[in-house]
Every structure is written in structure tokens, then in C-alpha cells.
């Protein structure tokens, strides 16, 4: 491929896609440094931490003792064979890794779930009950004149979101695009990245995160012509809510942005639903859309591949041979807490920070080197990171775009998909 040839010398890569958050920026430049890789251009705190992590190549282990990869694979297969109900969790991997997990979970008769699916289910439940109007990154970047950031610390989850989607100077629809209004609906949200020529007003409406739904429900009711009494709506002055509604109605293309991981409270799906129903209603007369973010650690790829292969977005059991779906019963964390499983296979291939849950059931850990589980796993197989140690594909947070990941360095760390296929073959 042309882009892999270097105009700057050996091992200098341009247009590199970054797997370390759901946005999958693909404009990075990466070159060699004395200690490994260096992000030369378009980096952020997450990509620098990820790409510049030193290569270490520890040995696979069984019960804490170094063994060969083949011995570790044989031990893992034995554990799965002997398990009554294994959980295949974590799933922080690329498309090929999820494909391999799905095949293994079918054959091993287990449950699949992603590490961050509690957050994903704040969205999936809304999809499964009422649906939504959504947009994607490029569409929002070029078209939106109003952004509402709903209770989500977007900058922390996605350090380049504002730079690339909100503060971009060029728009394909005008040589002199109008300034944008950015509304932060929530408390303590980092606004530092919202700056530059495109940004007009920046408003802060300090509402508690778990009351955002009330505000959106009230705006929806007001928009329908209903009467709402009281001067206070969800903790905001009524006038502020009415003003926000007027701004939404006046926008040529408004976008409400939320990141489900930030909506970390009970029944937060109802907040996502309030946002989505409001957006639907505004679309009866003008254009508006939602943009859900999050999806770090390969969560989007896991949901998508599980969705197209099994019909269901995660939390599927193959114990009977058929896909058996129950988003409550087969939630990994609930099952571990209730001790309904007797084996956890945990897959985390992007960062050493995605540690497995602390559980006393036996564990097979396919992890990034330096991952620190609370207890020694029965089997530990260090695996490579997609986009650094091997090529791959991931699905972006808007569930439309997928991006190719490249192999940037030579390492002996195996690809998770290859390890999983060998375990499956050994079952």
C-alpha cells in the first residue's frame, strides 16, 4: 500500500489508525524511537500511552510458572472443556479477535460479554425499545451548528473529539462556515478543548447527570405544547430550559452528544431514551441527531460482530448450542457476583489497564503484557495489540465506519485470534 511506503525513512508510518478509543482517529504519524515507537503527529494522551508503551514479551504461564505457548493453549482448552459454564469476557480486541471468541464460545458452550457492556447497554436498551435518529462523525463535523454535550466528559474519553469534530475550521458546505454553539449540559465537564475560530457561544447548564433526562423530557413536552408548571426543571431555571429548546428548534442541524460510560447511574438508559425521543420529535420539523460516543476497548467491534453473527448484541449464552439471549441474566458482572460461572476467559489486548474483575473462579487471561490481575490466573497468555503488533480491523463508535489497523513493529506476541483458534481446535 502506498501509504506504508515512507517518504521520511524506514518505519515512519502515516495515516495510522489508533485503536485506543472508540473514535479511531486515522491521521496519526508514527515513527521509531530508541525505545520503540513514537507518536510524531496528531497524538493524544491515549495514543501516546498506547503506541509508546515499551515492548515487553513475557512468557505464557500456567499457575504462575513459565510454560510454552502450546502448553498454555493446551491448559486453556482443558479448562474450557471441564467448565460447565465459561464466560468469554473482556473482548477488548479487533474484529478478527471477536470472530475467534464467537467460534470458541459456541464450541465451548459459554457466554460472551464485553468489559464495558454495562455502558453499552445504556444505549442497546434504547435501541431495543424505541430507537433513535443518529448521525456520524463526518456528518457532524461538517454540518452541525449546535452541539449539546449531555452529561459526558467527552474530552477525557476521547481527547481529540472536540479538535476534530467541533473545532474544525473547514466545512464542506461553506467557505466561511458559521460559528457553532456548544452547550455543556452537566456539571464539571472539561471544556478546555472547545476553542478556536469556529466556536461561538459556549453555554454551561449545570444539571446533575442523573437529572438530564428530566430536562430533555421537559423540553420534549414543551415542544409538544404541553404546560409545565414550576420555575425549576431538573435543577435548572425554567428559562434556561426554554432557551435551550428555542436554540434546538432554531438550529439547522443540532447534535446531542453523549457517552454512555459517563452516564454511570441506575437506569441511565432512560436518560438516553429521553434524549433520543426529544431528538425524534424535533425532527418532525427541523433536523437534529444524536451522536453516542464511548466504545473504547473495542466495545463497538465486539457488539457489532456478536450482533451480526448471533443476532444479539453481547450477553448471549451458547450453553445449549443455540444463541440464548438475556441482557440481564447473561450480564458478566452479575453472573460473576452470583457465582453462576465456573471459568472466566478474559481478553484485553489494548492496554494493561483493563484488568479482569476480581473473582475466585479460575481464569484464562489473554492480556496485554504488564496487565495486573488481582489474582494469579490459571493460564496467562500475553497477546499483541491490534494496530501495533499485528494488523486488524475495528468498528468505529458510530457503527458505520471501520478502519484498518497496521502492524507497526515486530514482536513475538501472538495475535489473540490465532491463540483462540488454537484453543478452539484443541477443545
Amino acid at each position: 500500500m502506498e501509504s506504508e511506503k515512507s517518504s521520511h525513512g524506514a518505519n515512519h508510518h502515516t495515516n495510522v489508525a489508533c485503536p485506543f478509543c472508540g473514535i479511531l482517529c486515522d491521521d496519526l504519524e508514527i515513527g521509531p524511537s530508541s525505545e520503540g515507537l513514537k507518536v510524531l503527529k496528531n497524538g493524544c494522551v491515549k495514543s501516546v500511552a498506547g503506541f509508546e508503551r515499551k515492548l515487553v514479551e513475557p512468557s505464557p504461564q500456567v499457575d504462575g510458572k513459565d510454560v510454552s505457548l502450546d502448553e498454555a493453549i493446551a491448559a486453556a482448552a482443558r479448562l474450557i472443556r471441564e467448565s460447565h459454564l465459561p464466560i468469554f469476557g473482556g473482548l477488548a480486541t479487533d474484529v478478527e479477535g471477536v470472530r475467534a471468541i464467537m467460534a470458541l464460545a459456541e464450541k465451548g458452550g459459554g457466554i460472551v460479554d464485553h468489559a464495558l457492556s454495562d455502558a453499552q447497554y445504556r444505549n442497546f436498551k434504547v435501541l431495543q425499545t424505541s430507537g433513535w435518529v443518529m448521525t456520524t462523525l463526518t456528518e457532524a463535523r461538517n454540518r452541525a451548528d449546535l452541539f449539546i454535550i449531555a452529561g459526558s466528559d467527552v474530552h477525557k474519553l476521547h481527547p481529540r473529539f472536540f479538535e476534530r469534530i467541533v473545532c474544525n475550521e473547514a466545512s464542506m458546505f461553506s467557505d466561511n462556515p458559521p460559528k457553532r454553539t456548544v452547550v455543556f449540559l452537566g456539571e464539571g465537564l472539561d471544556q478546555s478543548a472547545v476553542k478556536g475560530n469556529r466556536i461561538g457561544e459556549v453555554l454551561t447548564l449545570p444539571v446533575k447527570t442523573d437529572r438530564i433526562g428530566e430536562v430533555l423530557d421537559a423540553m420534549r413536552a414543551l415542544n409538544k405544547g404541553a404546560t409545565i408548571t414550576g420555575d425549576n426543571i431538573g435543577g435548572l431555571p425554567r428559562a434556561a430550559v426554554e432557551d435551550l429548546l428555542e436554540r434546538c428548534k432554531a438550529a439547522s442541524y443540532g447534535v446531542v452528544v453523549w457517552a454512555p460510560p459517563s452516564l454511570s447511574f441506575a437506569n441511565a438508559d432512560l436518560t438516553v431514551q429521553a434524549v433520543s425521543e426529544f431528538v425524534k420529535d424535533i425532527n418532525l420539523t427541523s433536523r437534529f441527531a444524536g451522536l453516542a460516543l464511548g466504545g473504547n476497548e473495542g466495545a463497538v467491534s465486539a457488539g457489532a460482530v456478536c450482533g451480526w453473527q448471533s443476532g444479539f448484541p453481547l450477553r448471549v449464552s451458547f450453553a445449549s448450542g443455540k444463541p440464548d439471549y438475556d441482557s440481564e441474566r447473561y450480564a458478566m458482572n452479575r453472573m460473576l457476583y452470583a457465582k453462576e460461572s465456573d471459568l472466566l476467559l478474559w481478553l484485553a489486548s489494548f492496554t494493561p489497564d483493563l484488568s479482569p474483575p476480581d473473582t475466585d473462579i479460575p481464569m484464562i487471561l489473554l492480556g496485554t503484557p504488564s496487565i495486573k490481575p488481582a489474582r494469579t490466573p490459571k493460564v496467562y497468555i500475553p497477546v499483541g495489540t491490534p494496530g501495533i503488533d499485528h494488523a486488524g480491523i475495528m468498528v468505529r463508535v458510530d457503527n458505520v465506519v471501520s478502519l484498518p489497523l497496521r502492524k507497526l513493529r515486530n514482536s513475538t506476541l501472538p495475535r489473540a485470534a490465532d491463540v483462540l483458534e488454537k484453543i478452539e481446535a484443541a477443545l
Partner: protein
Amino acid sequence: MLIKLTGGKVYDPANGVDGEVRDIFIENGRIVSPEPTAKVDQEYPLHGRVIMAGGIDPHSHIGGGKMTIARMLLPEDHIGHEVARTELTRAGVGHAVPSTMTTGYRYAEMGYTAAFEPAMLPANARQAHMEMGDTSIIDKGAFVMLGSDDFFLRQLAGKADFAAIKDYIAWTMHAAQAIAVKVVNPGGISAFKFNQRKLDLDEKHVYYGVTPRDIIVTLARGLHELGVVHPLHIHGCNLGVPGGYETTLETIRGAEGLPIHLTHIQFHSYGTEGDLKFSSAAAPIAEAVNANKNVSCDVGQVMFGQTCTASGDSMRQFVNTRSADPKKWVVMDIECDAGCGVVPFKYRDKSFVNALQWAIGLELFLLVNDPWRLFLTTDHPNGGPFTWYPHLIRLLMDKEFRRDRMQTINQDALKYSTLASLDREYSLYEIAIMTRAGPARSLGLVDRGHLGVGAWADITVYDDNPDREAMFTTPELLFKNGELIVRNGKIVKVVNGGTHVMRPSYDPGIERSLKGYFEDYHTVRMDNFRLSDDEIVNGGRGSLIIQPTRARAA
């Protein structure tokens, strides 16, 4: 290994063979004509059986983001339709929107060996191909959507050189690994993003100032001159709108004799007569199709029951959300490229509108007289799941059965349709045209869709059961590239199908403007937008079948 299929009745319209008893020989995956003395290694005595090429579905939504949205949207539709893993096959689900592997198994079990995804967004092409890569056994291919993407609309509005527009069309076919091009509500998906709610054939896009007619003619001429075999695949303006048939007629006239394919034409054949201002206009549409040899179409037959509509037509689907059943739906604006709308539907036989839609589809089948230009589809899953095909074939072949079914539907609907007066019954030969030879010829599939010497041995063997629904539901044998895949409706071997693509030539200079466009406006770089061949092949999971174009005309 030489395989002999002995004594079957062969229906091979591409070679003019209409039910003659013939032996077929297979060697190395292809149909051969061996020396009389050659040793036959395996023989299948097929006396009295019906033999056709493997079925080819030219319009079935099987892969891409909107299908996975539909799958996730409707867990309740999967319940009761779960399929267990076997030693050969993977687990899955299947009713309105089957999971990927199950989709492949169901097609094979029904005697089909290829299906084409008709609405692949360039921005979503990678995922569409990954889903198709997980669709077992059958060959696949996809039509890439153009016409509401901003690069093309900017070219058209900016009066770009026609050669540059053709280069862009061809570049997109390469980049997205497509075999053909589809336009959906031409310009309308983009116009909806600017808050336009309808866009008639001669109505101007509020921002770009171009009309659907401009878009259709430009794309149709572009494809014709590029030598792409399948003509522009048109999902016209005003889908589902009463009175929309006039737009359809005007679209045919507006093609100026250029080859065009009008897809799911049933949804575009509605009149405005009667108390409910909804009636069949199948007769004038069929008359126009019959009279214009440059036009081909597929029907998009409606079948009764639960399904899920999934379309790139965000503008029309937003209107259809009012009829969502169950009441949940997704509409998306996508990447300055396209859009989508996913709306579950339940077609009811006692509903006036749904019954009339069913009747209009059948009328079109029975009134269009050239099966080479009319293909059998339900626009899966929009009119109904593809698993209805055997039932639909019986409706076309058996007028008594059709009459019985007509008794069960809303009787008022029949008053606004000519269906009751139509006695035509399709022959096996005509069915073989509509489901094999016609789609293969229209798509430009070399050595597929026929049973002549040299063809790939994709072969379906049926019991000649007078109950045509039973016959087409459970073929006795299915061979894919000469390998036995299905016996008595059950899969006995699983293989990976290939992906058909077509690659018209273009001036790579177009990439200079595309590269800047992607860097200035998009969130993906051009080099990452483009799919490589390796992504399709993926270490043997898939393979590429590159179909030849005709000569580039200009």
C-alpha cells in the same frame, strides 16, 4: 474427479434448454463435456428430477451496518428462530433479519448459490464485506450507493468534467469492492439532511441545485460508458407514495434509452384511485417496462407477516416510522455519504394497503412479459424475508393456489387491482430465467447462472413436485463449484463463497482531488477508506471473482 448427473430434466434458459433430459458432467468445479470413454467416478441418477443452475438473488440486503442495526433492534423476532451449532454449521438466528452464517445456510438450503447486497454505502463498505465474509457458502457481491454523497453532488453542481465524474464512479467501485452502482432516492438522502422532506424527479436539491433527473442520467450514462455490465440500479424518488407511479413512468422516459434497472418496482407502482386514494398502477408500469427494452426491474414482492424494512432512503423511511410495528426505529445521516432508515413492519393480509401491495407485486409479475428483464425478489427483508421465495414461486406457477390465497386477503383491495383477472402461470423455464439466467446476465457474471460446458458447477436438483412451494423449499441436491453442499435440504458441507466485483478503468489522477477532499472534510483518510483485496481474501475466508467489464466507451 468426474461426476455425472444422469437423466434429469434440465432447465437452462441461457442455453435455450427447456426441460430436455440431459446428462451433466462435472470436473474440477466446472461443467465439462468428457470423452465418451472417460471414467465416471461418481454418478447421481436423477431421472424425473428438475435441474437448474444455482439460484442468484440480485437484490437482497444481507450485509452492512443497517442490517446489523436491524438485527440488534429486533431481538424478539429472533426468539423462537434460534439455530443450534452442529459439527458442520455455526449457531445463529433467522427470521426477518437472520444472522450472517444462518443467512448463507438458508440460501443454500433453498438452492441458491449467490446473493447481492444492493445498498452498500462507501463509508460502510468495509463492514458490509466483513458481514458478507461471514455469510456462509454462497457467493456475494454488492452495489455501491452513489448519488447522495457530497463528493458526487459537488461534482455535479460544480459542472465537473464528465470524465472526472466517471473516474469517481469507477474509483468508488474499486475502493468499495463493488460489482455495480445503486442510486437511492437520488439526491434525496442528502436533501433530507438539509431538511427537505421530499424531492420529486425535477425538484432541485435546496443546497446543490441539482435534480434527481440530473443525478440518474449522469450515473446511468457514466456506468454505460465505463462498461459496467449491470445498469444503474435505481431506487427511485417517492418510494411508497400513492401516485408515485407517475414518477416511475417519468423516470423511464427520462432515461433517454440508457439502460436502467428499476428496483423493488412494486413500491413504485401506486396510484391514487378510490376512497383511500391508494390503488394499483401496475398495469401502466408493466406496459412501460414491456415497451422499453432498456429497462429491467425486480419486483420487491410484499409477503404477509413480520419483517423489518432497512433502506438507504432516510427521507422516506422517516415518514414510514409512523407505521413502525413494533414501534421502534432508527434513522441515520451518514458521513456526508448516505443515510439509512430501519423500520420494522408487519404486513397484514386483512389490511387494505398491505393486501393491495401484495396484489400489485403479483400483477407486475404477471403483466411484465419478458422474464429476462424481471427478477424475483422480495427486496429482502423489506417486502418479506427471502425464505418466502418458494411460496412466491408457487403463487406465480399455480393460478388455483393464487386464487385461494386471494380469498384470504382484504377483499376491497382486489377491487383496485387487476390481479383477479390474470390467468398467467409461470413455467419452470421462466422461473429459471427470473431466478438464475436473468440475474446472471444482468450482473455480468461470467460462467454463472447457466449449465453449459465451461460454466461453474453451481447446480440445484429438485424433485418435480406439483406443489411448487414444497419443490423449491427443499431441493434434493445443491452443488457449489462442483461440491455437494446440500442433500434433501440439509447442509452436508460448508464452503466459503467468493465475492464478485467489477473494475472499470479510471484515471488515477482523480485521487489527487479525493485525497484533499478526505483530508479537509472527512474523518477518514483516503488510503484507509479504500478496501484492499487482502481484506476480502482474509487468509482464505473469502476470495475475489473479478468480472470483466465491457469496453469503456469514452
